[in-house]
Structures are given as structure tokens and as C-alpha cells.
């Protein structure tokens, strides 16, 4: 958007709006995207504060939980399989008598953490690889892209399964040194850390291709030439001129990839290679309960609804972002 719209400032002077401001204006005019953004924001708040308690000092009595009524692993033998609406258990309990509402709320943590970390790792690795490849001499560029093509033909899902099995076996066996440290982190995070690693390692490929394409097209522009003529170094050109111009589409495409990460995490937890029980993940909750669907449908359908609405919100947000940052693609 080379043409900046001009608006009158409060004191009468003309003020320009930057392309980014324009994009955000367009984003918030997009109703579905706004709804998606608000939902994602709510999820982030839930994920951050789900185990926060209101201190006893405020209301007196015991410390009360702020969001989730119970802890996710609080088992209760006499309160198993209660239907939604039971007093004390608004969404019922599962086969171990754990509160489904609390487990679903805690589940946002795993999904969001995986989504954000995997997306960030993929973005950083892919962007670095792609920009280097786009900027390198054509021989290096060719070699780097052949490697990416090569990985593209790989059955990634199977490699994720193999890697997760490897990580799980290593962490069960225990280890020392650097690996031991990683195992420790993974245990502390309820099995999420290795998920981050597996998803991040394997998902940067698409981003690398996009970043390289963008770099190649930006490299031809006159402002790069003029920067070079002024004696700017390669590093300066990359950081001051190339990155700011290609980061938009890359972030948009990564946002659109987030539902995929959430679903992969749910898939891995479903087949038993994701988070470690009893850490609540929606995929794990579904896999633990779908066999009782005939008698206790809510145990499966409630985490399912949470999963579907979350991916839907990210899809809306991603679509809106894409329309806002690249109006040529509107409606695609």
C-alpha cells in the first residue's frame, strides 16, 4: 500500500496511517476475525490464570480458585460419570470422577502452548533458512532448496510418531547430562516440551519455502539496490530492508498453520504419544472416553467442542489477518 490515506489529526495537521495501521483497521472491520481474536484472547487469559486462586484474605475463608473450580487431577471415586448440571460439577465428571469443566479449561494450556511455541519455532527456523537461502549465491540456494524438496517428500506424520516414541522412551528410562535436563523440563511441563521439539523440528519447511520466495522477490526491488549503492552491508540490508518487508505474509501464513498444530497435538495425545496423563489435553480426554459414547456422550463431546471452537477461532483470525495484510487475496 504505497498510497497512504491521510486523516486530519486533532490539531488540524495531516497525519498518515502506516500500512500496518491500515491492515489492523481492515482486520477489525472483519467481523468473524474480530470474534476469533476475542475468543483467542479469552483462551489466553484462561490458559494463563487457570490455576490462580483468589487469596483467602479477600473474601475470608479458604483460598478460592479463580477460573477452574477444581484441580485437573482431582479424582473422586464416588462421583464418577456424573451428567452435566450436577451441583458442583457444571459439565459433569469423567470415568475417574474428575471435573470435566476444570479439565477442559486446563486443556487450553496444552493446546495454546503447543500452538504458540510450535508456530514460533517454525517461524524462526523457517525464516532464517529461507532468508539465507534467498540471499545466498545460487549454488548454495539450490542445494538448500533441494534439501527442502527432499524433506517435502517425507512422511512427516510418521516421523513425528517415531520421534515422540523416542522421546517418551528416553524420558521413561531417565537420562543424565543435557538429555537429562531436557527430560526434566519435559516432566515439569507434563510432556509438552518434547511435543514442541517434534512439531517445531518438522514444520519449518513450508515457512522456509515462503520466506525464500519472498526474499527473492524483495531482493529485486529498487530500494535494496539503493541501499546497496549507499554502502549498506548485507546484514543491514537483511535486517533493515528485507525482513520488515517479508515478515507480514510469513506471520499470516504461520497463523493459518496454527489450527494444524493444535490438531496434530490432539492427534498425538489421542494415540497416546502426546502429553503424559493426567495432564489434560483435549485429544487425550476424547481418546479416554469415546468408548463410553453410548452412555456418557458428554465426556467426549465437551472436549471435542472446545477443540473445534478453538481451531475455528484461529481459522477466523488467520483468514482475517490474511485479508487484512494482503487485500488481493480477499475471499480466497
Amino acid at each position, binding site marked *: 500500500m504505497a498510497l497512504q490515506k491521510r486523516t486530519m489529526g486533532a490539531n488540524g495537521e495531516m497525519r498518515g496511517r502506516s500500512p500496518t495501521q491500515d491492515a489492523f483497521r481492515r482486520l477489525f472491520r472483519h467481523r468473524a476475525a474480530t470474534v476469533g481474536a476475542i475468543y483467542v484472547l479469552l483462551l489466553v487469559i484462561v490458559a494463563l490464570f487457570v490455576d490462580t486462586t483468589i487469596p483467602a484474605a479477600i473474601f475470608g475463608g479458604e483460598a478460592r480458585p479463580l477460573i477452574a473450580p477444581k484441580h485437573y487431577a482431582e479424582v473422586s471415586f464416588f462421583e464418577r460419570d456424573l451428567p452435566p448440571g450436577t451441583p458442583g460439577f457444571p459439565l459433569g465428571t469423567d470415568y475417574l470422577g474428575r471435573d470435566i469443566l476444570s479439565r477442559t479449561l486446563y486443556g487450553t494450556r496444552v493446546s495454546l502452548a503447543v500452538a504458540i511455541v510450535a508456530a514460533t519455532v517454525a517461524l524462526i527456523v523457517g525464516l532464517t533458512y529461507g532468508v539465507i537461502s534467498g540471499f545466498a549465491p545460487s549454488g548454495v540456494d539450490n542445494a538448500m532448496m533441494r534439501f527442502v524438496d527432499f524433506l517435502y517428500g517425507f512422511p512427516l506424520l510418521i516421523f513425528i510418531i*517415531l520421534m515422540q516414541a523416542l522421546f517418551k522412551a528416553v524420558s521413561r528410562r531417565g537420562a543424565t547430562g543435557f538429555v537429562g535436563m531436557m527430560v526434566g523440563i519435559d516432566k515439569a511441563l507434563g510432556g509438552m516440551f518434547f511435543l514442541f521439539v517434534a512439531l517445531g523440528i518438522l514444520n519449518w519447511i513450508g515457512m522456509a519455502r515462503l520466506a525464500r520466495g519472498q526474499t527473492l522477490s524483495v531482493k529485486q526491488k529498487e530500494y535494496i539496490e539503493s541501499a546497496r549503492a549507499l554502502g549498506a552491508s548485507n546484514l543491514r540490508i537483511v535486517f533493515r530492508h528485507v525482513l520488515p518487508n517479508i515478515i507480514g505474509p510469513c506471520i499470516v501464513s504461520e497463523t493459518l498453520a496454527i489450527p494444524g498444530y493444535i490438531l496434530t497435538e490432539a492427534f498425538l495425545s489421542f494415540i497416546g504419544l502426546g502429553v503424559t496423563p493426567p495432564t489434560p489435553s483435549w*485429544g487425550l480426554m476424547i481418546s479416554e472416553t469415546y468408548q463410553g459414547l453410548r452412555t456418557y456422550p458428554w465426556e467426549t463431546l465437551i472436549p471435542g467442542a472446545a477443540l473445534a471452537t478453538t481451531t475455528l477461532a484461529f481459522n477466523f483470525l488467520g483468514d482475517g489477518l490474511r485479508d487484512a495484510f494482503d487485500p488481493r487475496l480477499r475471499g480466497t
Partner: protein
Amino acid sequence: MIQYLVRRLLWAIPVLLAIMVVTFFLARAIPGGPFDFRGDKQIPETIRKNLERKYGLDLPLHQQLGRWIWDAIRFDFGPSYASRSQTVTDILKRTFPISFQLGVLALLFALCIGIPMGTIAAVKQNTIVDYGATFAAILGVSMPTMVTGPLLMWVFALILGWLPAARWGTDYTQLYLGFFPNLLSGKFWLHAILPSLTLGLAYSASIARLTRASLLQVIREDYIRTAYAKGLPGRRTVILHGLRNSLIPVATVLGPMFAGIVTGSMIVEQIFGIAGMGKYFVTSVTNRDYPMIMGAVLLYSVLLVGANLLVDVSYAWLDPRIRYD
């Protein structure tokens, strides 16, 4: 064209070899071996050693790798370590046709719903029909099979009782179905509806989105305007001249989609109690069943390579401007 095909097939060989080698090292890097436990009981040291010698697991690693690749080339992997009375080929022969039928039906369903829906949405752009279809599509993309599966089963099998809730082909587990099921039997279709619908739904939604987007670009092109100017009726123009050209992006995703459908069936098969090959991708890894891992991975990779090749060939048919010579 022939030359192109040969070149592509030759390029597939190093890719498949690399997949085999990487799989070998990843599988071997997982601590523990196939004969550590029988059920919950640990197998005594001497018996484990003997078993490992029998299956050549005591050889040096490079010899094992050589055997592994030689087995893969002949597509003969020997007995599965987890159930030693069956060979891997037997298991794949029994289970792959079921997964394949499920996958093909799901893909057909996805195409039959997705392409017309995308076309209608594009033709009626910015009307209520378009918004409805777009919303339905984004909803479909967001619903994973582990959500739609139980939901559809709950509604259509458990509440309404219209369709059977589980199994493939018949009510009881039939051990061998073969590639061509009895298409005339009503039972087969009744059992097939829910799983194929579940598996195909998400794909139909993404096909609809792609079709709409690419058709919208195509119908703005000059040759479409020319067709209108020559007085061709609207529907004929869009379908005969527009749709075919706009299917290229759809064909592009069909390759990975097909391979994804075969593995995506993992969850659908588990939910609907179907005896396909999906579960072996996971159980073979957790059991350290090396021959089974290799068989499943190789079959899947060959499918992936074949599907991508088919897609590239279909470009030439969809858009005559594309040539491969």
C-alpha cells in the same frame, strides 16, 4: 511425458531409500527392543538373546541396515515381531484394502461435495449462498475427525439409530475382505457411510475453499469473457471452460491429501472399530516391531510418491498448456 515419468520415478528411488535409512536409525534409536517383554512379564536374558539372534538383531548395525533395505526392495519383511505367526505382508494384505476402501470412499465424498459447493459459492459470490457455503467450509476445516466422528456416531447411530455404529463391511469382524468388497450388499454401504463421511468432511471443506478461490480468479479472465461474448450460456461457460482450469490448485493438494487420508484414517478406524492398517503405524512403533514399522512406512511412502506423481500428470490433462517435454 514418458521421459518425465521415468525421471520422476528415478528421483523417487533416492527419496525412498533415504526414508528407509532415516526410519531405520530413528526406530533403532528408540531405547528398548522388541523382545524385552511378553505381556507384562520381562523375558529372561538368554531367551531374549536367542530370539534376537534368530531375527538377526545381533548383527552389526550396517549389516542390519543392508538387510532392512534388501527386504524393503523385495517388499518381504518376514514375520511381525509382535505376532510372530503372521508375516508383515499378511497383515498388510489383510488390513490395507480396508483402509484403502475407506480412504477412496472418503476422497470421493470429499470431491463430490467439495467441488460443487465451491463452484456454487464462486458463481454466487457475495450472496447469502456464498456466505453460507464459506462459513460451512471454515467450520468443516476446523472440525477434526476426533470431534466429528463421535458427534456423527452419537447422532446417527446412537440417538436416531439409522446407521450401524461400528465395523467395516459387516457386523462381525471379517478377516479378509480383499480389494473389491461386495458392492451390491447394502450392509457394506450402511457401514461405510459414517466413517467415510467423518473422514471426508474436513477434506471436502478444504476442497470447497480451494475450488471457490481459484474459480473466482479464473472467471475474471479474458477467455471467459470471450466465451460469454460469443453467447455461450452461463452455466456451460463456468463448468466447461472455467472449472477445469481452476482445478489445478485442487489437484495439487489432492496428492498429500490422499496420503493424509490413509493415515488420517488412524483415528476414524479406532473410533469406528474398523480393522484397517491405521493402528499399526502406532502399535508397531510402541512394540519396537521393526519389520512392521518398515512395512507400514514403506507402503505409506510409496503411496505418497505415487499420489504426487499422479497429481503432476493430471496437471497436463487439466491445463493443456502444461507440458512435460
